[in-house]
């Protein structure tokens, strides 16, 4: 039973990922259709959330590794190339987003990179998903197939289907978060994308059944009931989204799309469980020992409410329509009341040489003490020496910092504030 709890955890992470990163990948792809400078706004829109959204993918991966290592060790080598592609695209996307966001104005290259990488991430994800659903050859608990086993007509269809789905999520989210042109464009794209998603879902679902009919026991009443209620839920949610596009309140299409995504995932699980990786890797074979799963599920379960709470807070902090908010200008820095701090002239000569020589000897000695060189003589010598040295440093730091603060060293200098008089 424990493995079902672990599986639930993996599915929760995966579901959160599809719902959250789905929309921001969709926004990324939609930015390709925006004109010029407007592209930058699409990046700004998701800048506050993409990091948190992507974390769910990492959680899904790690929960698989810890809880179902058999799946982790079979799937990742089995879909090696698309996962590598996915990771490279994730990096490129982060790069485009971060550098566009850090730049002063619109940078065509970074904006295009962000959009194109969003598309690449989605395509690779679809190939991974489709490749896994098409079945992976197993050999002694890990993958035993070829390098291109994942490339099937089904996986290509899956990739295209996922692009349409994420575009839909992106459009629905844009209706919620934007006003004006961006909202209008999203609204116009919404219904065609929804229709496309419905077609893709139908095609993919029917092809999946064809792929391996004896595995899907729709004769079992519980399974059938779960499957069909999930499908019904997805249809209703889709209808809500259809109705909501172009109408207020603006949050409705996105809520509908999210519900449809969740129902779709549940339907897929209802159809395939307990098989995790077709054709035959089941939860039971793939799972960790109970000690690992229990630790994982309990700790993650305890953390989850807190995680949801602060993620909800972050969501709430940036609620409502997106408005760019330039930072308030910096207030005036304090200017030093006293005159400029002048460097005292350094005396040269023998005194300095002697002092430097002595300090060098002291420094070498202290380095030796720090490395516990005298540990062979008595163990206490070096820790005491380090305590004295670090303590002196701490005291000197605090005292020096306070003195400098009082003397206005951390304030602007009049002389520095006026370049005409600054060059002394």
């Amino acid at each position, binding site marked *: 039973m424990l493995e079902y709890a672990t599986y639930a955890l993996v599915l929760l992470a995966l579901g959160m990922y599809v719902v959250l990163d789905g929309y921001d990948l969709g926004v990324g792809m939609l930015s390709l259709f925006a004109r010029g400078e407007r592209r930058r706004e699409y990046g700004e829109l998701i800048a506050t959330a993409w*990091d948190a959204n992507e974390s769910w993918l990492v959680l899904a991966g790690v929960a698989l590794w810890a809880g179902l290592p058999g799946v982790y060790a079979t799937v990742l080598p089995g879909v090696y190339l698309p996962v590598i592609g996915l990771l490279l695209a994730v990096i490129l996307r982060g790069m485009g987003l971060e550098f566009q966001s850090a730049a002063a104005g619109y940078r065509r290259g970074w904006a295009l990179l962000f959009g194109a990488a969003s598309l690449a991430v989605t395509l690779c994800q679809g190939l991974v998903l489709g490749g896994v659903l098409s079945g992976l050859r197993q050999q002694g608990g890990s993958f035993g197939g070829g390098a291109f086993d994942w490339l099937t007509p089904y996986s290509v269809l899956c990739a295209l289907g996922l692009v349409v789905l994420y575009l839909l999520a992106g459009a629905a989210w844009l209706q919620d978060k934007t006003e004006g042109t961006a909202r209008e464009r999203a609204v116009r794209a919404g219904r065609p994308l929804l229709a496309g998603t419905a077609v893709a879902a139908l095609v993919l679902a029917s092809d999946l059944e064809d792929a391996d009919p004896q595995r899907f026991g729709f004769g079992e009443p519980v399974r059938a009931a779960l499957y069909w209620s999930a499908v019904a839920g997805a249809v209703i949610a889709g209808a809500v989204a259809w109705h909501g596009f172009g109408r207020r309140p603006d949050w409705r299409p996105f809520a509908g799309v999210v519900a449809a995504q969740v129902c779709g995932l549940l339907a897929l699980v209802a159809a395939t469980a307990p098989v995790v990786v077709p054709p035959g890797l089941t939860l039971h074979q793939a799972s960790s020992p109970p000690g690992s799963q229990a630790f994982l599920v309990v700790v993650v379960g305890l953390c989850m409410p807190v995680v949801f709470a602060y993620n909800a807070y972050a969501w709430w902090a940036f609620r409502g329509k997106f408005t760019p908010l330039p930072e308030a200008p910096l207030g005036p820095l304090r200017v030093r009341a006293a005159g400029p701090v002048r460097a005292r002239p350094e005396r040269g000569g023998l005194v300095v040489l002697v002092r430097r020589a002595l300090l060098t000897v002291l420094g070498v000695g202290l380095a030796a003490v720090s490395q516990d060189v005298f540990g062979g003589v008595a163990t206490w010598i070096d820790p005491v020496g380090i305590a004295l040295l670090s303590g002196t440093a701490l005291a000197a730091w605090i005292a020096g910092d306070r003195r400098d603060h009082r003397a206005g060293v951390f304030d602007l200098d009049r002389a520095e504030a006026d370049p005409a008089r600054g060059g002394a």
Partner: protein
Amino acid sequence: MASPAALELSRWQFAVTAIFHMSFPALTVGLSVLLAVVQTVYVRTGNPLYQQIFRFWKKIFAVGFGLGVVAGTVMTFEFGLNWGVFAHAVGPVIGVTIGMEVITAFFLEAGFIGVMLYGEGRVKPRTMALASWMVAIGTLLSTTWILSANSWMQDPAGYTETAGQFHPSDWTEVLLNPAFTYRFPHMLLAVLISASWFVGGISAWYLVKQRRAALPLARRCLSIALGVLAVLMPVQLYLGDATAVFMAEHQPAKLQAFEGNWRTDNNGYNLLVVPDTDRGENDLRVTVPHLGAVIGHDLTGRAEVPGLLQTPPDQRPNMWSAFYGFRAMYVTALAMFATAFTGLVLRLRGRLFDSRRFLRWLVWMTPAGVLAITGGWITAETGRQPWVVYGKLRTTDALSHLTTAEAAASLAAFVLLYSALLAVWVRYIVRTVKAGPEAPSDTAAQPAPGTEAPVA
């Protein structure tokens, strides 16, 4: 079994991606603590200087953090991609440890980074400070878990072996494994220290260039950075030595390799070796007599440093990487210690901000911490070879079912992408530093930000 070429390529790929990833936390963990501190001081004092400091380092932190996250995502999946057998074997133990990292640390950072970076004007400054602290705590927790997982691979504890898989028997022993108790404090100080050199070096550059609008910021940050360094550097040398002593007991081959001796007949300290692995001797050796014994706590200078021939040939790590990785860390550490000590002396003499030679030297020290961390990790990881889980699982037995072409393609792609990314990242840092911090509002009549005041 996978081909030897696929194994070599996968090892290189792991090394490249891990080193690249590590260079980001090496800066962002310490920067996140600095940002949390200055934001708190800003809330308490209202002094715009601290807001200027926050906004300036935030620019570098934001990009570094984002890149660190995506490069870290690669690591999470790479264990399964290239090292499927390893992943299957250790998933029940360190998979869980890394799961803890994701749920307690990764999520915490990701959940608050948006508020911290974009919250200004939307939330109260107090909330910004809280978010900054949450991000800082997240990065520190992350360091903790990752070191626990890696230390378990260095010195596994608290497990049983069943059918080629490690099963946890005692979580306390797994998480607080013996190596962790030495390596965690060492790494924790390392990331704080490396960020301090970064902050101190850039601040020193502003002082050298006499960048007007940046001078208060530069002095303030230099004082913080050198204060941290003067306090932490002695402790760090001690922890490093303790870790080496620990490794001499638990992984003798690692110490033998990084000290660069084959036979146990040298009491000197090797500065330079050219090892010949096949013959089991050095073609060239530059050594300081007796120093090796002294560093090894024998003040008479006679004790011989153990050599790698004590270890059976099939259990020897590569001397090249362990030796030069260690030298990179150690030599840099001595330079860091000397610089921090000089900084302390200058502070005591009240000349910290106007000793131009020292400030110029500090600029050169900007990447010192990152360099030392890289060297240290190269020593730790290559010195553990030929094991991936020390004494239990050989690296050669850990590989996924991969073709050489797959491994070559992914390695090439990572090398290309990471080189480009590194170039863009360094250029971004340089440009951000050159552009300087935001000018305060009372200087409207003054030269535009970025122009330099005449240098005395």
